[in-house]
């Protein structure tokens, strides 16, 4: 393998190809190295290629041009993916919930339910997370895109089907809505009788399915 006295030409070729911005032909190398002998350069290239063969970097010839490149089995090192965990924002959680309870649903419908505009990025996040898919277009003027949940969504939330989502009445019974309800009651406090009528939406949704 590579000798202890790496010979001068071999070192020169090694350094030149390392620093080169383009793959180089033997002739170009020879010219660059002060009209060195082509045969000697070929010999040096062969030695170098053999030396690098087991290493993390290879010296390769393509179309008569030589260059260094990362060993093919290590190519995965050049492009790594790093995963990091992030909590879904509140807005995205709400949009996801609306899609889950109402699907299939258009963006305009989501917005009318939420009472606020929905940023494009919010839906993108849900699509990227693979919890929401585009389920086609609503056959109304403008043919808006409609969204629905994915099997991955059910998986992630441990739901056998969308019917497992609790209805509003159940939510209230389990106290899930209390923080908001308290605030609401405080506002309406004096006259207990005026609280808005119970919503029967959930049943309707169930019928939708």
């Amino acid at each position: 393998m590579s000798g202890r006295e790496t010979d001068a030409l071999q070192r020169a070729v090694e350094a030149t190809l390392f620093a080169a911005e383009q793959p180089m032909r033997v002739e170009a190398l020879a010219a660059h190295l002060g009209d060195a002998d082509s045969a000697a350069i070929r010999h040096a290239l062969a030695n170098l290629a053999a030396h690098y063969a087991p290493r993390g970097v290879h010296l390769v010839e393509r179309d008569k041009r030589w260059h260094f490149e990362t060993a093919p089995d290590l190519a995965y090192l050049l492009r790594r993916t790093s995963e990091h965990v992030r909590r879904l924002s509140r807005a995205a959680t709400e949009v996801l919930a609306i899609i889950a309870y109402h699907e299939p649903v258009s963006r305009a419908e989501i917005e009318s339910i939420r009472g606020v505009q929905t940023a494009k990025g919010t839906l993108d996040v849900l699509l990227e997370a693979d919890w929401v898919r585009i389920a086609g277009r609503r056959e109304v003027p403008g043919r808006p895109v409609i969204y629905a949940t994915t099997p991955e969504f059910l998986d992630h939330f441990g739901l056998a089907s969308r019917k497992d989502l609790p209805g509003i009445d159940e939510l209230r019974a389990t106290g899930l809505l209390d923080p908001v309800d308290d605030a609401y009651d405080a506002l309406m406090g004096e006259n207990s009788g005026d609280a808005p009528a119970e919503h029967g939406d959930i049943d309707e949704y169930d019928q939708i399915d």
Partner: protein
Amino acid sequence: MSEQELMFMQESSGADADWINPGSAPDGDTALYLELDGWEGPLDLLLDLARRQKVDLRAISILALVDQYLDYVDRAEALRLELAADYLVMAAWLAYLKSSLLLPKDEQEDPSPEELALRLQLRLQRLGAMREAAARLMARNRIGRDVFLRGKPEGLRIDRQTQWQCDWYALVQGYGQVKVRTAPVVHMVRNRPVMTLESALDRVSSMLGVTLDWIALEEFLPAYAEPRLRRSALASSFVAALELARIGKAEIAQDSIFGPLRLRRIVP
């Protein structure tokens, strides 16, 4: 010795090219004059003059150095070269230093000329050290000049992938909050006993018509009204009084601040 060197300096000439290189000294006196712009100030000039003494900076003769500097300034003036003020200030200071050094010891002031000379020497040593360091630094193997990085590295790419997280509880609660937030809100306004401005106007103007005397505002209020109606009646009657005063049907008097308001009809 310094005299000789000075003579030598006068005779040779040229060598401007050296000036490009840091740390080099001109070897010609003419160059010295012509390259005035090349000096980085009087200390720089002094340093180069000191170097001409060909000894360690710690062993230079300050007196000889002063003479060289003053001589240089004289020549520049003789050649009518314009010297920057700081060169002249340095010349004056060196002349003073020289005369002090030549005075008998006991007449010396504080700080002593020896101290001043030593401090000058120390400054020259420091500047000399830095100039030498700069030269050695520049002579190192520099990237892009002596050593080269990989010409075309593949580059490392790290794709960040987000693993989104949300739990069942947050999802369901989120939905509940949307429903609660967007539920239709009903505003209820309770029926309260009030006296409108209109009825107050009627009431006040008709009561004023009865007499020409002053009447206190309170007397216009309904006698047995409940407190909330009374408050409303007071406010409306007050506004009615202002309105009547504005259109010239009544006048208002108040004897002191927060005192009782009194009203009287104006007879046209």
